[in-house]
């Protein structure tokens, strides 16, 4: 395949890797983009991924936009994003219709209950891994605790909470001694 990829080719590559991604697309993104197609080097992948995580929004979608943009600009970014989403979206919506149809059957409902507990456990594990990367500093603990309490206990609107907490955290951190921020592992979602 000649470089740089056209938007059409980007759409196909990202559809492919997205459809391989049962339970998370990231490992397949690495396998296809770096190992099989050799579109980007491992170092570039890591760099783009750090960038994708730094920006707000779905990390894997940001990653698609960044890789697509490198190949053919804004149109490339949008094509890669569309590839990442279009086919899986149709697929998962079809599964949803099946679920509406058969979700009440006892066997399906029982299976889903078990799977849901596992799905929640996966997120808990990701949260634990993330929390372990945080330096044990009272400022970090206070900020994280306020967010948890605000959302889980008081059911505050997220927008309000974040708009208040970001300036507050900036003020707190300005007085903190400089320590390296460790690289956070990737979570689901």
């Amino acid at each position, binding site marked *: 395949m000649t470089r740089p990829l056209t938007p059409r080719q980007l759409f196909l590559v990202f559809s492919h890797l997205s459809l391989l*991604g049962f339970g998370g697309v990231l490992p397949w993104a690495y396998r296809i983009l770096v190992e099989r197609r050799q579109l980007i080097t491992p170092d570039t992948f890591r760099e783009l991924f750090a960038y994708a995580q730094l920006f707000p*929004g779905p990390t894997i979608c940001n990653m698609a936009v960044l890789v697509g*943009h490198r190949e053919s600009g804004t149109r490339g970014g949008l094509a890669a*994003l569309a590839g990442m989403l279009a086919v*899986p979206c149709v697929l998962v919506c079809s599964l949803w219709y099946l679920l509406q149809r058969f979700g009440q059957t006892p066997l399906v409902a029982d299976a889903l209950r078990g799977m849901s507990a596992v799905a929640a456990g996966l997120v808990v594990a990701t949260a634990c891994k*993330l929390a372990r990367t945080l330096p044990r500093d009272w400022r*970090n603990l206070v900020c994280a605790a306020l967010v948890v309490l605000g959302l*889980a206990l008081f059911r505050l609107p997220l927008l309000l909470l974040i708009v208040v907490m970001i300036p507050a955290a900036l003020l707190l*951190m300005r007085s903190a001694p400089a320590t390296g921020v460790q690289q956070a592992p990737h979570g689901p979602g």
Partner: protein
Amino acid sequence: MDQDDHGAIALILLAHCSAISMMAIGGGVVALTPELERLVVYNHHWMSARSFIENYTLAQAAPGPNMLFVTLMGLQAAGVPGALAATVGIIGPPVAFLLAMLRFGSRLGSPAMALLLRRAVAPLSIGLMLATSWSLSRMAVDNWQGALLLVGTTVCMLRTRLNPLWLIAGGAGAGMAGWI
């Protein structure tokens, strides 16, 4: 529920998802779960907590990005218009922001400022993920067997390098066996 309702709900979803999309910092879209649950289950009763967690599980187990649970949430609340509204709302603003940054220069102030911002955001995004864990766990678990499965999954993920798909398959098996 008729089509008018679906249109109105889709508009609310579009507005709300766009507004919170830029708050998905550090942990990805899953970190928005507490807010989405608050909107569609707690405030508006568009679906039960059970439906919410089932949609999340479906998106997690199916191929494609896990963020498609937002699409399913929209589909459940307001059919196809709802699915489109929720998806566009969650993806649109961050992607537009990213493309704008790529186009018009990607440096936001000094490196020191960027580091400070990262240090300030890190504990907040971890708070979001912990609140998300709580929210999903509460929706997913309604007996001690379920709680045991959840804790077992967490320990497995922290201690081993097992592919999560095996755990999901195991969860389905345990459910079908009537243990959960």
